[in-house]
């Protein structure tokens, strides 16, 4: 493992800062990032922040590895529904974006938490 973060009292206004921390950590790895990855990562962090806020700001755990990044947050659902929401729905698109932009993403739910794993390339 390269780096481990604990994002305490997460809020969506901090998504940019946390994303930059992750990208800085990834700069030590051979993985390449681009706007597609960064948008997917941003959506994942936004979703984690919103889910955690709803659960009274539980900490989001982030790990940066040579081959993947994981984001773990509280979740009231077992497996994220990555189906595309209706066109007039404002929320709920984030994970659909992640799945479409970064298909090398998988989710694992356990004990009221869900971990998203983004494979790097």
């Amino acid at each position: 493992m390269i780096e481990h973060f604990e994002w305490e009292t997460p809020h969506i206004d901090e998504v940019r800062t946390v994303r930059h921390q992750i990208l800085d950590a990834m700069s030590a790895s051979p993985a390449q990032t681009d706007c597609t990855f960064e948008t997917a990562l941003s959506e994942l962090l936004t979703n984690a922040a919103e889910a955690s806020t709803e659960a009274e700001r539980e900490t989001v755990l982030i790990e940066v590895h040579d081959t993947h990044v994981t984001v773990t947050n509280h979740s009231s659902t077992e497996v994220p529904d990555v189906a595309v929401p209706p066109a007039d729905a404002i929320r709920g698109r984030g994970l659909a974006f992640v799945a479409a932009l970064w298909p090398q993403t998988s989710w694992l739910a356990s004990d009221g938490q869900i971990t998203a794993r983004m494979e790097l390339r």
Partner: protein
Amino acid sequence: MTTPRHDAHSLSIAVDGAPARTRIRLTGDFEPSHRLLFTEILRGALKTSAITELDLSRAGVFGSAAVAAIVDARRDVEQPTLVIRNPAPHIVTVLEISNLDIPVDTEDADEPGLPSSRPGYDQLIARSVTSGREAMCITTDELDSPGPEIVYVNPAFCALTGYSANEIIGQSPRVLQGALTDRVMLDRLRAQLEQRETFHGETVNYRKDGAPFFMNWKITAVDADDGRYFVAHQIDATTSVRATRNVAATALLRDAADHGEHERNQRLADALVAAHHMLLGAGSVGSEITAADTRRSGDTIDRSPAVYERARDSGPEIIESDLHAFELIVSADIDSREVRVVVTGLTSDHLKLTALDDHVGLVRLAASLAVG
């Protein structure tokens, strides 16, 4: 080893606004915290411009917050003409998933082949309509009031009428009509459209600020997948109408002068009346062409000598004779002949549509012909 792209990217929003077209260029990463600000900027552009272009060629992170901002901005704005330009592939993916039904324009349409075979053909047509100088308006096909309803106008239409797309879409073209609009022509318009014929006509319409103008327009019924629409092409014909009428009025005077000396002046006076009717399209006209020492008075021509002097020396005199009613008085002396013209029963709309210099020119021409 990767070089983080993000270091140089905070969001900047550049707005190049105009009534016809506003361009917004996003540079950098769109964060959730940008959502409210961008929503307001985009909503403002959509409300005030006929076309809003969102240039995403330099956008970085662009996800659900950006999509939500676009959805929010469009929610209460009846403005369909948002175009997204040059999005990067990841933004194309986001837009496709979002199913926002917003035209996406990429500037790589220089492919060979017939226009209709190009992927960007529809965009090419759309761009031709939006950038054309001829005003264009599309309405539903309900002829009975309160219809038809305007569903699209191009920027040239907004420039012609003074209405923004947001103001006019949903309204009836009747808002452009007024006191001087030719009702007979409107009846013909209706009859021809009911017969599925193309209508071509000319009448007075009114801009948003109330200024009248001559509008030449053509309306064609077009069947689309979801129904029938009327497509109207319009041009401001004020200048050409004035010129045409002036030529015809001048011809009237020259024909009238082609008579023996003993009847020339009366014919010229009659022709002057007809010519002014022609120029104004309304009003009661009186005129006389007399030698200065044989002046006579008439019901419509009897005004203070000082008024004629001012009209002769300083140009046409406009007098408000009654509430919202005006008189136009023009006068000219050539040798010992004096020509006087009084036009009564005019409204301010008549005067706005009239080039006063045309009347002076006609009076002077009549005076010179009377001398001959």
